[in-house]
């Protein structure tokens, strides 16, 4: 493969006509022929469930897989705040163009214009679809849909269902999928995890799965494979992701030839409940929507940090986001807010628990909102979030301010895909968080749900059909050697995990140590030397892992430790690539803050001359020496500017 071949297949012409034109140019499969084609969809969160439901409705033969016990439990369910759409119901000047611009600026000009515009364009149809499915979005007393504001936008365009928007949207997609299961167009497999991609030369023709209940390896063939397996924030061990979220499907596809794009672009969400101990298993997000009414502050004086927040007078409080970014205030984008919080805590003005000698937390205060709007109004908007906070911290946020600190939340990086959401492997598509496509170097709040559903409901059904229209249905009996090969490699990996030479350390313990290395080197602040050091540390720990990982029980039957070990093994390789990517990108942009490239105020300093590209990495056979391909980004409609939220 050479660089010339890394073609985004993005259409040309006026931006607003590109998707329409592309759809018209796409081929279609006639209704009578659709059931002759099989599509495998791995992962049944928002993107996977909506894609499989839509493909099933069209009449394709769809096979779906998820590791959870039901598609309704995918981690999309935990998205709290909302979903953006350019409906302009508030008459505050919103439009598809504005949503497009906000999103591409929010991503610090590291995403493709064509893709982002299409996303903005499709946003409105998603709301129509969800409402028709019965998603109970918040409404005004008039009976019409309500909106709230989210970070990085000066219009109010976020649709929400209290603090459970992801849950409601996922249930909508899950129910649409359930209908197709009943109709017989979808065959679903729960508690089933993808182990390998089955390849026929350069083309993906199926997957090998492990039944997590029986431990049995099985092969499934298809005319194309769609990965909607989510993000890899759990590489850091502590993140806001569900415990099961993993990189295994996309990483194993990467090792079969799919390029991995911008792996170091990971979103650190500013408002999470601070870590409180060493054995903590995960972090919990407090929705960005809270910044609509909550005010972020820290004591002005270090001496006040141990006082009760109620005892610190107004004049001794530093509402630092409002001070630093007067025009966006508390609603600056996530990367900006996270860096500001870190800055304050690094100055020693943090509050709450000390982790490694530093107090890591600032206040998110609702006193003013409660006083102005009343307790009931605040409870109506955020009740479930306040309840969650109280359960975890044993503090009542109606009476005392919340304490928050940034945590890893989302990964903008993922499998490289073209405009059709196809990876560099023929017949392998990636949707939702699993691909890299739309968020550049930083994702705006309420955009993940939008992207997952745009991919699933509207883009994949068009582009998958176009791909299938160009193929003859595959004949399963021709592929026994390809199946044997993939099965053998899955078996070998499991055997190796089960039979480490000196089994003495659990996969969780290795994962914790790996997460620590990554967080310090490739988290909110990155430097050349810390990244180089981290790469060496990861390599050494990875060697230890294969030497010492201890799994009890057997591979035949349900074994959760084995499941975890397999996922951690993949994190051990991905994390090295994340550091290599962060090292290569000698600039700061969005979430990627290289300390060598910050302004005096601590803002990201982009280098458009040299780094206005998507870094797409190819597996070379040696994890430590991947090959870099660059997809240069062209901006014909917006001019990359310095991202200013002041």
């Amino acid at each position: 493969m050479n660089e010339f071949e890394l073609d985004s297949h993005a259409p040309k012409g006026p931006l607003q006509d590109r998707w329409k034109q592309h759809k018209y140019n796409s081929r279609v499969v006639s209704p009578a022929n659709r059931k002759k084609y099989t599509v495998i969809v791995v992962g049944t969160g928002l993107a996977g469930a909506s894609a499989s439901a839509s493909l099933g409705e069209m009449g394709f033969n769809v096979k779906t897989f998820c590791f959870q016990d039901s598609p309704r439990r995918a981690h999309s369910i935990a998205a709290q705040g909302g979903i953006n759409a350019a409906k302009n119901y508030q008459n505050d000047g919103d439009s598809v163009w504005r949503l497009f611009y906000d999103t591409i600026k929010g991503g610090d000009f590291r995403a493709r214009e064509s893709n982002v515009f299409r996303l903005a364009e499709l946003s409105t149809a998603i709301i129509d679809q969800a409402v028709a499915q019965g998603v109970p979005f918040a409404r005004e007393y008039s009976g019409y849909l309500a909106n709230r504001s989210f970070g990085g936008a000066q219009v109010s365009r976020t649709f929400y269902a209290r603090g459970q928007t992801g849950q409601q949207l996922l249930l909508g997609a899950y129910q649409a999928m359930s209908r197709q299961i009943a109709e017989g167009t979808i065959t679903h497999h729960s508690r089933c995890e993808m182990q390998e991609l089955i390849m026929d030369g350069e083309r993906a023709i199926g997957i090998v799965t492990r039944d997590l209940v029986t431990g049995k390896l099985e092969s499934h063939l298809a005319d194309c494979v769609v990965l909607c397996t989510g993000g890899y924030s759990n590489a850091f061990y502590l993140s806001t992701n569900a415990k099961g979220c993993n990189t295994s499907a996309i990483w194993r596809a990467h090792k079969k030839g799919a390029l991995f794009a911008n792996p170091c672009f990971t979103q650190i969400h500013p408002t999470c409940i601070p870590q409180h101990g060493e054995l903590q298993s995960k972090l919990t997000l407090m929705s960005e929507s809270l910044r609509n009414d909550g005010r972020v502050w820290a004591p002005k004086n270090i001496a006040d940090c141990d006082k009760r927040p109620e005892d610190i007078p107004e004049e001794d409080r530093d509402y630092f986001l409002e001070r630093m970014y007067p025009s966006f205030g508390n609603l600056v984008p996530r990367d900006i807010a996270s860096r500001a919080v870190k800055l304050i805590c690094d100055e020693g003005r943090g509050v709450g628990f000390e982790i490694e000698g530093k107090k890591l937390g600032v206040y998110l205060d609702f006193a003013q909102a409660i006083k102005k709007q009343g307790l009931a109004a605040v409870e109506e908007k955020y009740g479930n979030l306040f309840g969650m906070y109280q359960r975890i911290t044993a503090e009542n946020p109606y009476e005392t301010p919340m304490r928050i600190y940034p945590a890893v939340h989302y990964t903008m990086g993922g499998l490289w895909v073209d405009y059709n959401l196809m990876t560099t492997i023929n017949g392998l598509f990636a949707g939702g968080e699993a691909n890299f496509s739309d968020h550049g170097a930083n994702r705006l709040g309420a955009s993940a749900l939008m992207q997952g559903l745009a991919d699933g409901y509207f883009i994949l059904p068009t582009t998958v059909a176009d791909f299938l229209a160009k193929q003859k249905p595959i004949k399963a009996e021709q592929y026994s050697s390809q199946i044997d090969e993939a099965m053998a490699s899955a078996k070998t990996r499991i055997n190796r995990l089960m039979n480490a030479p000196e089994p003495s350390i659990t996969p969780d313990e290795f994962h914790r140590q790996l997460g620590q290395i990554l967080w310090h080197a490739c988290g909110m602040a990155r430097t050349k030397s810390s990244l180089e050091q981290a790469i060496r540390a990861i390599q050494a720990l990875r060697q230890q892992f294969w030497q010492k990982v201890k799994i009890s029980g057997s591979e035949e039957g349900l074994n959760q430790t084995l499941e975890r070990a397999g996922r951690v093994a993949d994190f051990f390789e991905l994390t090295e690539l994340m550091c290599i990517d962060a090292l290569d990108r000698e600039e700061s942009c969005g979430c990627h803050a290289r300390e060598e490239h910050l302004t005096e105020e601590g803002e990201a300093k982009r280098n458009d001359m040299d780094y206005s590209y998507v870094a797409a990495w190819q597996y070379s056979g040696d994890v430590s020496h991947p090959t870099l391909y660059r997809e240069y980004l062209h901006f014909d409609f917006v001019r990359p500017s310095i991202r200013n939220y002041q």
Partner: protein
Amino acid sequence: MIFKLNIWRQSGPDKKGDFKSYEIEASEDSSFLEMMDALNDKLTLQGEDPVAFDFDCREGICGSCNLVINGTPHGKQQATTTCQQYMRDYKDEKELWIEPWRATAFPIIKDLIVDRSAFDRIIQAGGYIPIRTGSACEANTLPIEKHVADEAFDAATCIGCGACVAVCPNASATLFVAAKIAHLSVLPQGQMDKQRPAKLLQAMEEEGFGSCSNYRECERVCPKEIKVSAITTMNRLLYQSR
């Protein structure tokens, strides 16, 4: 704090299960499942089979976790899933009994893990509004009174965990079914399918769940506080559809 744990161990669906005792130290700030993680790390290092249990999001929304703790599904804190129970809630206790959901329609897979796919099949029987992708009308062409939308939302928050079944003397899934019906059938776009209550109730019966005889235990343990008024709504719709 040191606890004596009595945990249900069962190696497979057709195997005989029994309680086994363990001792574990846990801090007050540890969540219940983090305490279980620590036990499993210990068991793994000793070469024993760790305790199998379901979990995922650990923030109370995915509905995966499902332990019966001292006889109560999810544990002593009300309106709270297992993963959001903290050990500080149990500091007055020395001994804990941990069991799986028990119901014919939820067969045990291993230890504390049960098969809840019956819930998926109930939804497949009609727990949806049949709208094909792409054929929706503009969202605001259909105003819905706020109190109706709120009522639908209250029912829609069901996480499908199955605590209602686990606590019910009849192992009935009526609250689960009623929540889905109260979510969809009160909304104007969901009113086309008048047979939804009948279809879902029939599926429930076929899966081996019992019927409702108004113990109202389900309401008490529901982590999302779904009210039995959803059952009233369902019964009304069922009656009207006949």
